[in-house]
């Protein structure tokens, strides 16, 4: 038996290439790892990277058409700037307080007071009416309007200050009033989806497309056109000069097999070969604005490492044969 000695590392060294990076959007290539790692990162980004969201609401006065719980639920769903969430404590294990909101380690207090006085116009109460007691944690729209005002906004963001109208909470008619105190807490989306920093996180296998050029040249221009058009997405095209079939967008391929079936139907099996590169992935990450796409990726790696650390065997588990790893024996 040719087995290597125990204690040898089988570690991989993944490579990354960023294609696009904006505040709330990232597209990147991940190579030299497998689908289990890509999927673990995706799952952690969606459900286990912490953010801050409103979790406790004390209604002082509510004469709006929506009931108290309805409003509390809507407040919970408002994305709050959460760059500091990784460093905060969960109220559940905060020993400095009992999670009632008076504690700076685990919570942020908000106030909202609105009253409609105009007879002819309904008053729209939005996330912009929320007043935070901590300038680092506020509704994302407020933060974006502020960044634009002081000129530190994302240079690729084409929105204007007037686009940040806030998120509608409730509409009030004359005489109606809403007053409340809200406590935002750190949490993860495994608990409630309102804590998810991710709008979408997806990855795809990079396709490897090989055209049998020799066989392709036996096709007439009409046949080539008909074959190119059999793909539901625009993966191929015909070079107007050389009349050759070329791949214009590899990643538009949806693994639908249509071009393969078409080639077979035309009596040209083997005209095209498409396989998924099992160690290369193209990721698309979009956030709610609570944290930036880059922060989401980095925090996901940190969280996944913390999870791995938590599942290590403890020495008192007995029969601890991994002792040589501690002694540095390779």
């Amino acid at each position, binding site marked *: *038996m040719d*087995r*290597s*000695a*125990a*204690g*040898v*590392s*089988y*570690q*991989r*060294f*993944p*490579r*990354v*290439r*960023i294609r696009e*990076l904006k505040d709330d959007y990232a597209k*990147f290539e991940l190579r030299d*790892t*497998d689908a*289990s*790692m890509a*999927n*673990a990162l995706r*799952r*952690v980004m969606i459900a*286990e990277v912490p953010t801050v969201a409103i979790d406790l609401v004390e209604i002082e006065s509510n004469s709006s058409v929506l009931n108290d719980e309805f409003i509390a639920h809507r407040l919970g769903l408002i994305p709050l700037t959460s760059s500091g969430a990784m460093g905060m404590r969960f109220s*559940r294990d905060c020993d400095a307080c009992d999670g009632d909101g008076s504690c700076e380690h685990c919570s942020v207090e908000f106030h909202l007071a609105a009253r409609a006085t105009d007879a002819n116009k309904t008053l729209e109460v939005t996330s912009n009416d929320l007043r935070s007691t901590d300038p680092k944690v506020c509704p994302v729209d407020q933060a974006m309007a502020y960044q634009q005002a002081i000129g530190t906004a994302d240079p690729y963001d084409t929105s204007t200050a007037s686009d940040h109208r806030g998120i509608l909470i409730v509409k009030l008619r004359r005489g109606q009033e809403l007053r409340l105190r809200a406590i935002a807490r750190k949490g*993860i989306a*495994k*608990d*409630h989806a309102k804590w998810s920093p991710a709008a979408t996180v997806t990855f795809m296998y990079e396709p490897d497309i090989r055209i049998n050029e020799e066989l392709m040249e036996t096709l007439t221009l009409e046949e080539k056109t008909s074959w190119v058009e059999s793909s539901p997405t625009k993966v191929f095209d015909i070079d107007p000069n050389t009349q050759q079939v070329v791949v214009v967008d590899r990643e538009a391929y949806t693994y639908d097999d249509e071009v393969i079936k078409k080639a077979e139907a035309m009596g040209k099996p083997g005209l095209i070969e498409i396989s998924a590169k099992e160690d290369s992935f193209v990721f698309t990450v979009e956030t709610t604005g609570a944290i930036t796409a*880059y922060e989401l*990726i*980095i925090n996901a*790696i*940190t969280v*996944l*490492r913390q*999870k*791995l*650390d*938590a*599942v*290590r*065997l*403890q020495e008192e*588990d007995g*029969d*601890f*044969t*991994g002792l040589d*790893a501690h002694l540095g024996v390779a």
Partner: protein
Amino acid sequence: MNAPDRYERFVVPEGTKKVSFEKDTKIMNAASFTIEREDHTIGNILRMQLHRDPNVLFAGYKLPHPLQYKIIVRIHTASQSSPTQAYNQAINDLDSELENLKQAFEDEKNRFEERKQPY
């Protein structure tokens, strides 16, 4: 009214061990690890990393029930190794892979920003 608390899905109850393992009574070098409050995220990367180890003859995981918040990882190794050793090595390897990945991301972000401003 009697719904369990939501946090029961990811908080290990007091008095319960995060990881426990039990040796197989019939097969040498085989054991089952029960990991509390973990799911496919950890289960699948562990399994795939264990498959990279040629001393591992079998590695698999299961989530016995969607409402039982635990996974069971079963490992069978050759005599040169042991399930606990393979388990520890897999975690160490995954951890350094992620440490590396983080560095790779930070470096690539710097390169990306340089590419963005070519003057």
